[in-house]
């Protein structure tokens, strides 16, 4: 199976393989553009086709998770940091709520 590196991150490939069927093994190779994956069956319970099909499904899902993570990992770290050390982290928020008289004074 040849997978474009543009489309799929290594992390997603690894995670998809982690959850693979127990009766198969996989070998990953790569060239400059692609991941090259060879599946081998250890028993007759499944077929190579179904293994590859299930792998691709998982891969797509893990790639989506990877995308979410890329876009939100800083936020996630910040939330955890704030949870663990509330006194040490202060987040800038928009607290403006002046009424017209205060806005006038502010001018």
């Amino acid at each position, binding site marked *: 199976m040849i997978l474009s590196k543009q489309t799929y991150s290594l992390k997603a490939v690894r995670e998809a393989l982690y959850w693979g069927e127990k009766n198969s093994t996989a070998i990953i190779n790569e060239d400059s553009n692609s991941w090259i994956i060879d599946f081998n069956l250890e028993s007759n319970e499944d077929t190579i086709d179904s293994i590859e099909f299930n792998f691709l499904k998982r891969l797509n899902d893990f790639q989506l998770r990877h995308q979410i993570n890329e876009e939100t990992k800083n936020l996630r770290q910040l939330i955890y940091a704030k949870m663990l050390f509330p006194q040490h982290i202060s987040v800038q*928020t*928009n*607290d*403006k*709520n*002046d*009424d017209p*008289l*205060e806005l006038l004074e502010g001018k």
Partner: protein
Amino acid sequence: MKSQLNLSTQLAWPSQYDESIVARVTSVIDDIISLSGQKIYSKLSVDCIVTHNSNSNNNGSIYIKEKLDIYEGDILFLGLKQARVIFSVQSKTNSIFATVRCNSNCLMCSQPPLEHDDLDENLAIWDTAIDYMPENMDYIGITGGEPTILGIRLTQLLNKLTTKYPNILIDILSNGRRLSVQYLSELHRIHKPYNIKWCIPIYSDVDYIHDYIVQGNNAFWQTTRGLSQVYSAGFQSEIRIVLHTLSLARLEQLAKYITLNYPYVNHVALMGLENIGYTLYHNKLLTIDNYEDYIYKVSKAIIILRNFNINVSLYNIPLCHVPEELREYCRKSISEWKNSYHSDCHSCSKINECAGFFTWNLKLNPIVYPI
């Protein structure tokens, strides 16, 4: 109908009164109302007479053209142009009016804000008035406008109240937007937080829809942070939801949102819409016309909240306007001075337990079903 807020009266003000006065009614005999009080800034004691009889003007008594319902123990404000009853000894729901100013502009505001700097004057009025309030008092509200605009003055009034009345419950009606920043240090200077309940509206589980309803940028998150502070500082808290088409649309989802994000809240009040102020201007937008949908959503919301052991009340809603199984949640919530009943209500067996209507809502010609 007695008015607690200003109904401006023609006041003939004798020349020796150069400053506003807050005074307690010591006696009412015919047209003569005797008062004992103070000038609000200088705190000089003043005894005076108020009369509806224009002929007694010479004795230094104050002539008020309109007849007000006044009882011994009531507290009056006598300004240089107006008089009003600011505390009714007969009422169980007196309120301290903090300010006409507000930093929100809710689509359904029943008390549209004014840009008038009344903070110092109101502090002087209420600081004086508290001294004349009765010996015992279980409850008082603080309304406006937005009370937190008073800042340090609000703290002063709250501490004065809890000192004089150690077991009082004080409800503060606030949008909560300043509680996590501008008013935060004051929050921690309030004594006896357990005696104080912040009543804060949240109108949607979707932040920008709430912002739209209250017409405030980022209001939702400011308010949420405020509620969180109030909880950690040991105050009681209540979430208020005025029911109209915009808040009804996602009422069930809001109930669920409350159970997940404000599980510590002591009480949730679902409130009938008051047909006055900005509501009149947004009538078409806000008025609920699908009764079945309304009752369905309200019932669902109550079940969700009750499942999480959160107390719920229905305010400002007549008993005959909800199905029987919801009536246990209805409260007699409308302040006496703006509370009226339909003429058909007098044949109803439950009239004494029922909230009735806002006086101005009767103009909408509601139908009642006497029980």
